[in-house]
């Protein structure tokens, strides 16, 4: 049986690594310290597979074909690509994918009530590259990304995302193989990107989200509507769907915030959260 040995939630923002100089040094240091502590704890669990709950930013999925949930079947992932490497100031690299496992998840989903879309070619952006720059410095562990539509409404409900993660967790635990699986969700917390409120961060809402995750009290989060998230967390706040999906895979686990920094220069309420039983 495969085992879920670790779970983590982090924000992602290209400026976190692309423009470290613009943030206040103490904020940057505290956030980076949170990432480094997350990396240390993650490495200690010796995962041999990362399942990642992430989202596209209109980078690949076009409005002509927009999946709610999409499993990556790529042999490898650019994290980052040579093109975005300069912008994020992270060396370009390829991370191995886990297409056989992805295919098994797809087939299990079709049997079990989750009709995932799939893609053999994904042009990733900061959702993989920035968090994994910190969390997977040697890049040796295969990655299975599951993309949830957080950017092109209408979006799957918070509750549906949580249920999707629950399905993924059950699928992993039922595997006949013996992988040690780490789950990582990236995105959020509050941020407004490209809207008239670009740059706003809602620290009250961010703390409200973190407090509920800290107590494993998810029901208020699962009741959130698209409009409520848009109002209080911004269009970037819609990415908490990824966090809720991960939390669905580890029922009852609690999130310990290792860092939370609202960084206006990176236009994001930035957090790193270790999730444990």
């Amino acid at each position: 049986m495969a085992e879920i040995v670790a779970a983590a939630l982090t924000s992602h923002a290209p400026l976190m690594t692309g423009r470290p100089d613009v943030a206040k040094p103490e904020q940057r240091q505290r956030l980076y310290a949170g990432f480094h502590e997350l990396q240390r704890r993650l490495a200690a669990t010796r995962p041999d597979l990362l399942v990642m709950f992430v989202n596209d930013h209109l980078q690949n999925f076009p409005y002509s074909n927009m999946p709610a949930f999409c499993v990556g079947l790529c042999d490898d992932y650019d994290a980052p690509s040579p093109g975005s490497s300069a912008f994020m100031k992270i060396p370009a690299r390829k991370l191995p994918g886990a297409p056989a496992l992805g295919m098994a998840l797809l087939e299990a989903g079709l049997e079990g009530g989750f009709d995932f879309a799939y893609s053999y070619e994904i042009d990733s952006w900061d959702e993989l590259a920035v968090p994994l720059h910190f969390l997977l410095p040697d890049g040796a562990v295969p990655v299975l990304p599951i993309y949830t539509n957080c950017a092109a409404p209408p979006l799957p409900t918070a509750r549906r995302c949580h249920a999707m993660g629950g399905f993924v967790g059950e699928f992993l635990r039922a595997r006949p193989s013996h992988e040690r699986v780490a789950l990582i969700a990236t995105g959020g917390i509050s941020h407004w990107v490209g809207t008239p409120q670009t740059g706003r961060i809602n620290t009250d809402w961010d703390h409200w989200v973190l407090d509920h995750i800290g107590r494993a009290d998810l029901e208020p989060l699962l009741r959130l509507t698209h409009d409520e998230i848009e109002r209080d967390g911004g269009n970037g706040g819609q990415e908490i769907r990824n966090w809720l999906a991960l939390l669905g895979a580890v029922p009852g686990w609690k999130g310990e915030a290792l860092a939370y920094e609202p960084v206006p220069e990176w236009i994001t309420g930035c957090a790193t959260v270790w999730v444990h039983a």
Partner: protein
Amino acid sequence: MKTSYALNKVLTAVARQHAMKDRLSEADLAGHTITADERAALTSGDITKLYELGANPYLIRRIFRSRFKV
């Protein structure tokens, strides 16, 4: 939430050229069917109007980055 497929189709095509712009040119709009309001907002680089007309904010940000204060 309002979505204009026509606007987002134009913006997606420009974004895939990996070009950041202050405003779109007539050449960028060639072959696209868009309203007069959409055309005006694209060719003037009016990021607020584009949002109101149903352009995706991630695409607005990607292309018209220079229009944002942060």
